[in-house]
């Protein structure tokens, strides 16, 4: 029981003077500098201080056969920048000073209240009873109360959903009404436009008619020389047409025929010749001037084959639905047999 406090007024709690502090700092600095210099070098180069390699020296060695030889011994060179070989290891703890006087007061007596506070009741398991036996599943199910739960739905819930439903319907109706009105308006607009266009067209037609009427008397004033020239032009065109027809009928030389008859060098010059494609060899290998792998695309693309296997037929054509064909009533296919095949003997004549 601490009744009164210790009198600490007698203690001198003033901090040491600045001079003393500076002295202390200088002393510490001096002491630390030595250890620090070593550690800095160690930290700089691969965790090991740079040391001078030993000079090589010579050893006299007598072999088993009695032959004497001189061996040169020198240190193996190491890379000073090499990483530390060993990662951090847990260094065993240094000597701990055990001779410390424990000065604390003895532990207080625990009151029963404290004891009660510390008592933690064991957890109640759903799987095992206090004796450690497993509880049967039906008891567990009945105990967990999942069937005891009474679901009560609030009165407001149906009301709420009803209102929501009503609101949605109203909204939909509104939207459709608005749409109908808009449609009607658009129709009216388009009708109006159409009428306008029609009027305009009629007006234009009327104008044109009036113009034609005005021009007709001019046509009659045409000179006879013009008429003659027209006649000649017409006849010439007829003649050209006739010639063309005759040419066609007599199969004169056509472009197609000309192409067929051309020499291969001529075809190459015209760019018409197509190289024949071989199906046995991979064409990508032929493009040698760009390198061997030029035709194969980039490296991460996986295309071993230059083209798909069934290129000429699509997937739909690989298999044919025979049953479907039959049902369509294909006359060419024979109808299914009902009885085994009967062979007929060939009669000799």
């Amino acid at each position: 029981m601490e009744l009164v406090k210790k009198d600490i007024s007698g203690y001198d709690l003033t901090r040491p003077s600045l001079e003393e502090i500076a002295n202390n700092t200088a002393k510490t600095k001096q002491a630390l500098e030595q250890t620090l210099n070593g550690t800095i070098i160690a930290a700089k180069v691969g965790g090991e201080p740079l040391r001078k390699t030993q000079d090589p020296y010579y050893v006299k060695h007598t072999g088993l056969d009695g032959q004497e030889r001189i061996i040169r011994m020198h240190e193996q060179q190491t890379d000073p920048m090499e990483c530390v070989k060993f990662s951090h290891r847990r260094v065993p703890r240094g000597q701990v000073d055990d001779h410390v006087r424990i000065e604390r007061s003895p532990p207080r007596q625990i009151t029963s209240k404290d004891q009660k506070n510390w008592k933690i009741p064991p957890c109640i398991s759903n799987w095992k009873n206090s004796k450690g036996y497993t509880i049967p599943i039906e008891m567990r199910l009945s105990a967990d109360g999942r069937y005891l739960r009474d679901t009560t739905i609030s009165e407001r819930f149906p009301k709420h959903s009803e209102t929501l439903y009503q609101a949605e319907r109203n909204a939909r109706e509104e939207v459709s009404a608005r749409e109908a009105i808009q449609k009607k308006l658009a129709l009216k607009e388009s009708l109006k436009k159409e009428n306008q266009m029609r009027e305009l067209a009629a007006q234009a037609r009327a104008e044109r008619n009036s113009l034609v009427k005005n021009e007709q008397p001019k046509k009659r004033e045409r000179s006879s020389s013009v008429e003659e020239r027209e006649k000649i032009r017409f006849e010439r065109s007829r003649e050209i047409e006739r010639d063309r027809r005759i040419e066609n009928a007599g199969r004169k030389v056509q472009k197609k025929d000309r192409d067929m008859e051309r020499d291969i060098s001529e075809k190459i010059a015209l760019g018409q010749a197509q190289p024949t494609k071989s199906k046995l060899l991979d064409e990508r290998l032929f493009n040698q001037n760009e390198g061997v792998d030029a035709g194969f695309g980039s490296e991460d693309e996986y295309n071993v084959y230059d083209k798909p296997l069934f290129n000429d037929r699509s997937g739909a054509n690989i298999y044919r639905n025979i049953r479907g064909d039959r049902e369509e009533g294909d006359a060419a296919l024979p109808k299914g047999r009902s009885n085994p095949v009967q062979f007929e003997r060939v009669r000799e004549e």
Partner: protein
Amino acid sequence: MEDLVTENLKRTYCLFAANQGARVKRPRDIDILVNDTKSRSFYKGIPDVVEEVIKKRKIEEKKLENPSYNPNTDIDSLKALLSRREEESKSSQLAIFQDKHLNLRLKTIEPVWHPQWKLMRVISGHQGWVRCITVDPTNSWFATGSNDRMIKIWDLASGQLKLSLVGHINAVRDLVASDRHSYLFSCSEDKTINCWDLEYNKIIRHYHGHLNGVYSLSIHPTLDLLFSTSRDCTCRVWDIRTKAQVMVLEGHTGTVWDVASQAPEPQIITGSADTFIKLWDLSTGRCMNTLTRHKKAIRAVKFHHEDYAFISAAADNLKLWKCPEGEFLRNFPGNGSIINDIAINEDNVLVTGGDDGVLSFWDYSSGYNFQNIQTQVQPGSLSCEAGIFATCFDRSGLRLITAECDKTIKIYKEDENSSISSHPIPPEAKVFIKPKY
């Protein structure tokens, strides 16, 4: 003659060999006798008070044996936070206080009145527990480190987020903004210590070597040294510029929770989970003294700014120690909760942040606990997330910043409306000092 002596030795050995190492049992009567003598010499000339005290003690003894005995006497005045022991000492103090004779004889310390503190601002920005705070030397911003691996820098005046620093891969446990460099040091549970250059907001140095999460940092005020303590039971000393580890201070057998440093001796003190405080000699790297008075893990140690003394906080008590040798001066009776951090300002207001979310304010000179604030968790957190991890005064000592378990940072200030008449110091807060004979 020699034979006789050896014979004697043998006999004694036979007799007492079995008892070697056994504790000497003190009869109970002796204890009582010692206590009686002590109290008699102490209360010389005031027999009735002694009698009263003895009577009280008898009642207590009965209470200890049988807790159901008169339960009405057990009143919790401060939300049942203060221990029963303190209650009793207070009531007996009151008894002495009422006695005029004794009052004349005993020296007293009047607690200094301090204004009440109140919550000013709650800053929510971190996504994990906020573990640590540091205020910059210019008092314009403060930095917080959190379990969400981020360090956030906030404007002190407005509470606006200025910057988020990302670089750690585990909870940031401590931050120190250096007074002499434009550096911010951070340590983390990912075993790393980083040095941030605040001109570029980048990590410029790593201090590599801890084998486990690093829990606390401290900078030497005059030398370029950085101290870090860790779960690997060591305190390491780093050279700030070269990143080299100068020395390892080994000796603790538990997590070293906190470290504090100052220029005069002892230059480093560490508080550990093994309940010991160690004072270290920096020039040799040896332990100067081990203080063993605490019963619980020590999570915070702090040097007093003016007195040549330091304070340590454990779950049982706060203790004040004298520098340089570490002589025990005084207890600040704790409330039994774990204390995560302590802070003290120039007005000698001592603040402790508890793991149960209680922020306690003490008058340093008398040890009177003048205010307790239970923090409110921010909406959306569990009630068990009320916990204070770090407390820190700003450089002026007028704002208190706390880092909390509910992912917020709270700023407290002094209440202008509180006065000595609205929050008087109760008479029993007066501290009686044991006279010297």
